[in-house]
């Protein structure tokens, strides 16, 4: 069976991943224009060569505290349903090929925001890769605004 490839990134010390084919590009920190009254997880909008990209603060989306690191967030630009989104994450790691046979459903005891966004996990040799659903990360939250 063909190996699944994920781009890995860290948010709040956790190793997360999304399928490589969903990623448009990875960018260093970008100027983000904040949007008053926008849902909490929306960090703002950024200008990607003339296209408007909605920046999602993944920490906020997952209910984590704001980063205390000095390094600015990295941008993982993804397209979903004809719109562009940028996932703001702490750092971006390697592309990881994993054996689909190792795929497991998300642990039952995950808290709510994680459960919504987590598509499943891969136990690795060291640590666990949590596969996120891009669609869920950029979805309109219930009760938001």
């Amino acid at each position, binding site marked *: 069976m063909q190996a699944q490839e994920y781009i890995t990134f860290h948010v709040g010390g956790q190793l997360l991943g999304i399928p490589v084919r969903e990623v448009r590009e990875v960018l260093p920190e970008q100027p983000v224009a904040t949007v008053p009254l926008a849902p909490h997880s929306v960090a703002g*909008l950024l200008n990607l060569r003339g296209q408007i990209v909605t920046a999602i603060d993944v920490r906020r989306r997952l209910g984590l505290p704001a980063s205390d690191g000095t390094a600015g967030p990295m941008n993982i630009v993804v397209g979903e349903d004809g719109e562009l989104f940028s996932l703001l994450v702490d750092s971006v790691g390697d592309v990881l090929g994993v054996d689909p046979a190792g795929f497991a459903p998300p642990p039952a005891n995950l808290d709510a925001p994680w459960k919504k966004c987590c598509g499943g996990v891969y136990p690795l040799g060291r640590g666990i890769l949590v596969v996120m659903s891009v669609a869920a990360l950029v979805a309109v939250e219930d009760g938001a*605004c």
Partner: protein
Amino acid sequence: MDDLLKDFIIECNEFITAVDQDMVAIEKRPDDKEGLNRIFRAVHSIKGACGVFGLHRLEAVAHAGEDVLSRMRDGSLVIAPVTVGSVLRAIDVIKEILAGIEATQKEPQGDDSAMLAQLRELVAIADGGRAPAAAAAASVNVPAETAPAAAGKHGPALADQSLRVTVEILDRLMNQVGELVLTRNQLSQLALGDEGSRYGASIQSLGRITSELQEAVMKTRMQPIGNSWAKLPRLVRDAAAATGKNVELTMVGSDTEIDRQILQELQDPLTHCVRNAIDHGIEKPDARASAGKPEQGRLQLSARQEGGQIIVEVRDDGAGVNFEAVRSKAVERGLVSDSDAQRLGEPELIDLLFAPGFSTAAKVTELSGRGVGMDVVRSNVQKLGGSVELTSQRGRGSTLRIRIPLTLAIVPALVVGFSGQAFAIPQVAVTELVRVSEQNAHLVEDVHGARVLRLRGDLLPLVELGEVLGLSAERKSAGEGFFVVVTQVGESQIGLIVHSVFDTQEIVVKPVGKLVRGVGAYVGTTILGDGRVIMILDAAGIAQRSGALAQLDASMRKRREAEAAQSVHRSSTKLTQLLLFRAGNGAPKAIPLAHVARLEEFASSKIEQADGRALVQYRGSLLPLVRAGEEIADGACQVIVSSDGERSMGLWVGKILDIVETELRLESGARGAGILGGAVVDGRATEVVDTRHYLDLAFGEGALPGEATRELRRVA
């Protein structure tokens, strides 16, 4: 040729070209189900549209072809050279007919009976379960090879002249032109402080080319408004039949072009208005007869361009708005109290028609009563940056006028700042900009925490932009200075408090993403020349969020009542509102306020000279400036923009002083060109200037006294 027919021909030619290829492929690979489906759909589509245009010959051929194809599709007819050949022959005839229509705009004559008989025979064979090959050999004489002769002779000429381009590509082009406009703006900004630079000429021509390119790309998005009217004749017919009325629909200006996005958004509101006019406006034939009107009601739909706007009118010669009915309905619905209702004038009552959940029909009918009211029409049009107004005369009919901008993609906007963050407000929503500083701080007053601005005798509710957007709760005092952007929201006005005003710019409106759309405070977003992303404010949304509208309606109503009371007085003395200005060193002059389109101030650096005339870039075009007096100094200039509907000019004045209401005395032109008449302002005789004269000056035509007098009567 009729545009619709033209489109139809182009579409058919495309179908046919594809069918030719598929048909040939199928003969070789009879198991290609997908190819067969494509052919079937194409022929089916052609047949379907024939009825609309009354193309009976084409319909008959396509129909027979479709019958055979459907048998081939379900397997009851084998796919063999014989069967494929007869379908190809039918397709050739279709081609011939299409070419004929294209050339003469009429369906060409011709005898297809033999070919039709052949096709029917095949159908009969399939339905009868006979072996097609044997039958064909016995009775159907099909040429072994049918040369597509017609295709070569009549090339689809129309198709060669127009291309189908996906909207996506056009949108991308629009986007890129938008970026180019921004870059051009940025470059012009840089060049400003550098007069006589060697880049100057290049930058200027870049500017010109960019404007032309922008215009051309905008044009590709334009469609005749008639495209969205195509369904209306049928709708009117059905609606009239359902209500037992007799209605004649006329359409004027269907070739008026409008941005396709606006066209789409306009479809529903317009359909609703037309339905409404038939359902509520036009009376039944007997009622019309007894009112002395022709039994057939008239409904006219018209569109025209006026400046940067499209005006769409739905006019009927029906009963007009029954204001008594509106009154009692409003009370019944609990919208106003009984005593209030009696005091409401016609403008307020018309306003009530647009109130959410209002319907004047005695019963909710199948036609109009679909939970979509005039409130939805108004809000949809407002979303497009437009406005709706209704005028009505009892017994004579009503006119609904929709004003919408030509395009949504690039709009002039005012860029303002609040707490270090910039926002854009579309110019269409901005009526005026007021600077509040120490000198006029007394005009801002506080009513139990709600701030209002005294503006020419009115109280304008002020909305703290920062508070509405949750940016800061700290209020700047009037003494510290701020700007008030006076914004039109429906029929009411509110003042948005902002800290700074940067510039007016042509901005490219980009849609906001789904996560931000729900906020309701923005109409879109844009990228500034320096690459910054800023939000475009939705004045109506902001007003709604602030809750100012509720207070507003009450205050507006009071004002209207006062106006209504005054209007009796006014009509007897004929008071005219005049704008006072200083032209030079002499006494102030005046201009009828009705002639004033807008007040502007331009920096001296913005004024260009061409051909001995002063011009200024204004809202995407060049505005000629005419000095109101000899002594007016160069430098920053205050300008009264005036327009006669086609031409606009800026009257360059020394200083704009005030607005007064007084009696205007007309004069027969004895005082010389450019003077309309006189008025007494503050006990002094004041000359009232004729803008028509200056328009003529601006456009280099001789003054026309007759015209001027006519214009005058309208004003007075």
